[in-house]
């Protein structure tokens, strides 16, 4: 089986030859092409080459997820972004587009084609598709509308704005979503097989289920439809604690969810598999920080525990629950891949 066939079986909730694997290798890829973080995250050729080089180095990887950083989308509204040498880019927190609650009115639908960072991401997808389309699934990572809005404000103030003027936040969220709709359409047209939505706020780490439904469920439903209309699949990524599988499945109907902690209505991963395993494919859930702390044996055990809990019957991809640390070594990613190939073999 090649990666595409393996992931197709995974998405069909069938057992493939083995558990598919993807330790969310993104920013770390820059090391393989000798690029700094700023270059890797702004130059499409370098970024795409980083992903392709990673595939060369680890040919058993089963997909590519283009998580560049969480400030790609906010660039479209002119947010000033800082590009540290060895860290992911982030908004300039001292100079945010939405400085005050009245500033939400400034957030209107914009033309994504004027955003260098969005266009760069589309170019990355196009370059990856030119090389691996049909062999390795290409998953474009996109921050959801409320997340994008939080990068234009800042999370803390936005949370309080949700109390002080929820309608202003909601209206701005819709304008962001309309922009993202055109953007993800372009990502799909460029060759992405799926869009992985980061729905950071649909989690007990942050806001109530009712608040998420009120603020982001409808825009996400609209965006998910856009993706399906372009012949692509929706996936969800959320590394918060107690994430809301139920309302996200209802709104987005994703084919897979990438997560770190069991959802709010499940005590553990095994219960998650029992409750949601027939509704959505599961991706996760190894703690990425463990790539830089603890022993190899502890890392290995977490990988095998995940396989034990969620792999039987198919519909499970072994992965880190969030991005693999960008400044770690590749050693533990390599171990995870080996574990998927050996311990994760369905046909032993």
């Amino acid at each position: 089986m090649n990666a595409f066939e393996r992931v197709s079986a995974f998405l069909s909730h069938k057992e493939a030859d083995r558990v598919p694997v993807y330790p969310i290798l993104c920013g770390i890829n820059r090391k393989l092409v000798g690029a700094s973080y700023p270059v890797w995250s702004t130059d499409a050729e370098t970024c795409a080459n980083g992903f392709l080089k990673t595939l060369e180095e680890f040919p058993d990887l089963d997909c590519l997820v283009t998580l560049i950083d969480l400030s790609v989308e906010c660039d479209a509204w002119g947010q000033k972004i800082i590009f540290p040498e060895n860290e992911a880019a982030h908004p300039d927190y001292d100079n945010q587009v939405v400085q005050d609650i009245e500033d939400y009115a400034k957030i209107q639908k914009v033309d994504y084609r004027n955003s260098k960072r969005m266009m760069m991401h589309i170019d990355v997808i196009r370059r990856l598709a030119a090389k691996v389309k049909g062999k390795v699934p290409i998953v474009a990572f996109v921050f959801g509308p409320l997340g994008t809005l939080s990068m234009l404000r800042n999370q803390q103030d936005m949370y309080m704005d949700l109390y002080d003027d929820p309608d202003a936040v909601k209206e701005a969220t819709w304008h962001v979503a309309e922009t993202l709709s055109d953007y993800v359409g372009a990502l799909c047209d460029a060759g992405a097989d799926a869009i992985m939505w980061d729905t950071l706020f649909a989690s007990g780490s942050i806001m109530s289920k009712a608040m998420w439904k009120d603020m982001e469920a409808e825009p996400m439903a609209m965006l998910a439809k856009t993706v399906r209309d372009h012949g692509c699949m929706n996936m969800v990524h959320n590394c918060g604690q107690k994430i809301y599988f139920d309302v996200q499945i209802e709104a987005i109907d994703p084919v897979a969810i990438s997560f770190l902690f069991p959802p709010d209505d499940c005590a553990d991963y095994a219960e998650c598999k029992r409750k949601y395993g027939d509704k959505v494919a599961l991706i996760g859930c190894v703690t990425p920080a463990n790539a830089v702390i603890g022993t190899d044996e502890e890392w290995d055990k977490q990988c095998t525990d995940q396989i034990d809990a969620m792999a039987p019957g198919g519909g499970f991809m072994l992965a880190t629950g969030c991005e693999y640390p960008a400044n770690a070594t590749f050693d533990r990613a390599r171990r995870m891949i080996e574990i998927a190939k050996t311990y994760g073999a369905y046909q032993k």
Partner: protein
Amino acid sequence: MDLHQISLKLQAGKAKDVKALVQQAIDEGVPAHEILEKGLVAGMNVIGEKFKNNEVFVPEVLVAARAMNMGASLLKPLLAAEGVKATGKVCIGTVKGDLHDIGKNLVKMMLEGKGLEVIDLGTDVAPETFINTARDEHCQLICCSALLTTTMGAMADVVEAAKDAGIRDQVKIMVGGAPVTEAFCKQIGADAYTPDAATAAEVAVQLCSK
């Protein structure tokens, strides 16, 4: 007046109402420490417990803390005049190289809600800043926050800096943040890790009373 009303308004995040009720209580001659304990701290205790139990979430904690601060600003000079001292002194910051502050701010709010005096060092805080502040301000506790796996290692630098400065036996060090675990806390020789802001405040009170 019924100080429970202050607690209820605080829990609802009604900052203006809390300020007005605190002023009313002051005007009625209620001692400041009583308004603080039975109104503001009581309200934040309820919020902290509900936060821990996933009954309220980050936005609710933030608006409650904002309401607390509005009320506390009126009480501060009166508490000083009454000679009321904080139950402990803490310095808190996000470690070197990390600019994320919402987790740190939540912990700070919860600490203040427990009646602790908190020195907020902000983000991207160098180990020597933690140590100098703890020594010069006589803090019993240093709280270090990190959101990134790339910056959590700086917490170990704070522990080492405390040893180098010869104050490790005088100050406790707590660590927290999304990538931080109990195992990591032990590995670097910190004193405590807590998974959420409400528990952090409870543990901080215990550590400050030792």
